[in-house]
C-alpha cells in the first residue's frame, strides 16, 4: 500500500449502511408518487457495493485460502435468503430494515461458525462476513426496487424472481464487490483505485437493472442514464489512477531491457 491516506473502514461502513438504507427508503416512499424515484435505490446499491468491495479487500489480504469469489458468492447467497425472508413477512416499511438486519445476523452466525467450528484464523472474520452480508442485502434491495418499482412481496416475486432478474442482481452486484480486489491483485494495490472500480462496476449493474425495470419508461430512462453517468465518471477516475500507479503505460513496445530491469 502507498503512503497515501486510506479511508478508514468505519467511514466506509457508515457510507454503505447510511447510503444504502437512505437510497432504498427514499425509493420506497417516493416511488408510489412517481416511479422515476426508484433511481434512489440504485444510488443506495452503489454505496453498498463500494462498502462491500472494501470489506473484500480487507479480508482477502489475510489470505482466505480458497479464492475471493467464494466470499462474494457467500455474501450474496446470504443476502438473497435474508431479503426474501424479510420481504415475505409483509411488514410494510419495516421490511427492508428487517431484511438488512436478518442478513447481518446470518452473516455473523456464519462468521462465528467459520471461526469456532471450522477454525479459521482470520482476525476480522466475523465482522467481515457480517458487513459483507449486509452490503449484499442492501445491494439486492436497491436494485430490486429499481426493477420491480416497489418492495411489495408479490410484486418482487413476479417481477424480479420469476423472471430470473434476481440472478442478474446477484452476479452483477456480486461482481461489483469481488472484481475490484481480483482485478487489482498485486503488491501495489491502492484503495482509491479499487473503490473507483467498484463504483464503475456498480454503475453497469445499475444500467442493467434500469433496462429491466417495469416501473415505466421514465424510470428506465432516468436510471439507465444515471448508471451510464456513474460508469463513465468512475471509469475516468479509474484510468487516471491506473496511469498514476503503473510502472509505465505505453502504446507499443518491447519488453524492458536488462538495464531498465535493474
Amino acid at each position, binding site marked *: 500500500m502507498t503512503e497515501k491516506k486510506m479511508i478508514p473502514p468505519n467511514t466506509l461502513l457508515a457510507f454503505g449502511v447510511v447510503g444504502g438504507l437512505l437510497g432504498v427508503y427514499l425509493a420506497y416512499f417516493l416511488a408510489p408518487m412517481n416511479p422515476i424515484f426508484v433511481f434512489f435505490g440504485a444510488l443506495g446499491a452503489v454505496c453498498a457495493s463500494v462498502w462491500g468491495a472494501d470489506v473484500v479487500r480487507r479480508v482477502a489480504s489475510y489470505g482466505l485460502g*480458497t*479464492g475471493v469469489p467464494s466470499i462474494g458468492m457467500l455474501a450474496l447467497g446470504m443476502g438473497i435468503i435474508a431479503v*426474501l425472508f424479510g420481504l415475505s413477512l409483509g411488514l410494510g416499511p419495516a421490511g427492508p430494515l428487517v431484511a438488512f438486519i436478518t442478513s447481518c445476523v446470518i452473516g455473523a452466525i456464519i462468521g462465528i461458525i*467459520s471461526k469456532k467450528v*471450522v477454525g479459521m484464523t482470520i482476525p476480522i472474520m466475523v465482522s467481515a462476513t457480517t458487513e459483507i452480508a449486509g452490503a449484499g442485502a442492501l445491494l439486492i434491495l436497491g436494485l430490486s426496487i429499481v426493477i420491480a418499482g416497489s418492495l411489495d412481496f408479490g410484486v418482487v*416475486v413476479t417481477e424480479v424472481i420469476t423472471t430470473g432478474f434476481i440472478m442478474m442482481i446477484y452476479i452483477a452486484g456480486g461482481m461489483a464487490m469481488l472484481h475490484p480486489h481480483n482485478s487489482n491483485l498485486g503488491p501495489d494495490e491502492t484503495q482509491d483505485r479499487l473503490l473507483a472500480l467498484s463504483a464503475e462496476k456498480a454503475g453497469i449493474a445499475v444500467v442493467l437493472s434500469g433496462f429491466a425495470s417495469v416501473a415505466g419508461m421514465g424510470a428506465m430512462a432516468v436510471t439507465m442514464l444515471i448508471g451510464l453517468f456513474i460508469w463513465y465518471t468512475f471509469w475516468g477516475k479509474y484510468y487516471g489512477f491506473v496511469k498514476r500507479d503503473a510502472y509505465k503505460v505505453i502504446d507499443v513496445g518491447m519488453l524492458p531491457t536488462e538495464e531498465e530491469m535493474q
Partner: protein
Amino acid sequence: MIDIVGLIASNLIWILAIVIGGTLISISVHFIPVGGAPAAMAQATGIGTGTVMLAAGAGIAGIIAAGAVMAVNQNIWVVIGAAAVGAAVMLAATMIVATWIYAYGVGVMPVSAKVKYDPITKYRQDLYVSQGTEGHGIPTVAYVSASIGGLLGGLGAGLAYYALMKVSTLPVTNLNLVAVVSTFTIGFFFINSVIPSYNIVGTIEGFHDPKFKKWPKAAIASFLASIPLGILAVVAVASLASVGGL
C-alpha cells in the same frame, strides 16, 4: 403479519430435510478431487479448478436435473436420484476429457503423490510422479471419489429443493414457486459449499487424502449454519401461498 412459529412447527420435517441436505452438500465437497491452480499446470493431482466452483458446477447440474424431473414426477426418490445422477454425470464428463488432455496434450499419466499405492487399482504411484510435482491427472481413486462426491452433493441439493417445494401449498407447476425455490436452493448451495472450502483450505485429492479426515468439522458447521437458513427459507416459501395473484 404471519405466524412464524406456527409455520416452523408445521414444516419441521422439511426444515430437517433442508438441514440434512446442507450437511450432505458440505460432506460431498470433501470427496471431490480439487487441485486448484497447480492441477491446471499438471503440478497437483485432481481437477484444475477451485473447490467452491467445481462443487457449485456439479451441484448446479444436479439442481437443473431436479427441477426438470420434479415438474413431471413428484416421487422423492426419483427426484433426488435424478439430482444425484445429474451431478455425477457432470463430473464424469469433465474428468474424462481432462484425462484426455493430460494423457494426449501434456503427456503425463494420472498419478497421486499422497499415497504409494492406489487404494483401488493397487498401482504403484510414487515412481510415476514427475520431478518437482505433487502428482497430476485423475487416478482411478480420485475418479471414484469424485463420483461419490457428485452423488452426495446432488443428493443434498435435490433434497433441499424437494423439501422447499413441498413446503408450499401451491402446485409444483406454479412458475413463481419454482423460481423462488430454485433461487433459494442456489444461494443455500453456495453457502454450503463455501463453508467446507474454508475447511479444506486449498486442495484435496479425495477420500484417500489425509485432509479428508477433517470432514466432521465442516459437516457440523454446515449443520449449524443450515438451521437458520432453512427456517428463513421455509417461512418465505410458505408465505407465498398467502400472497394474492401468485
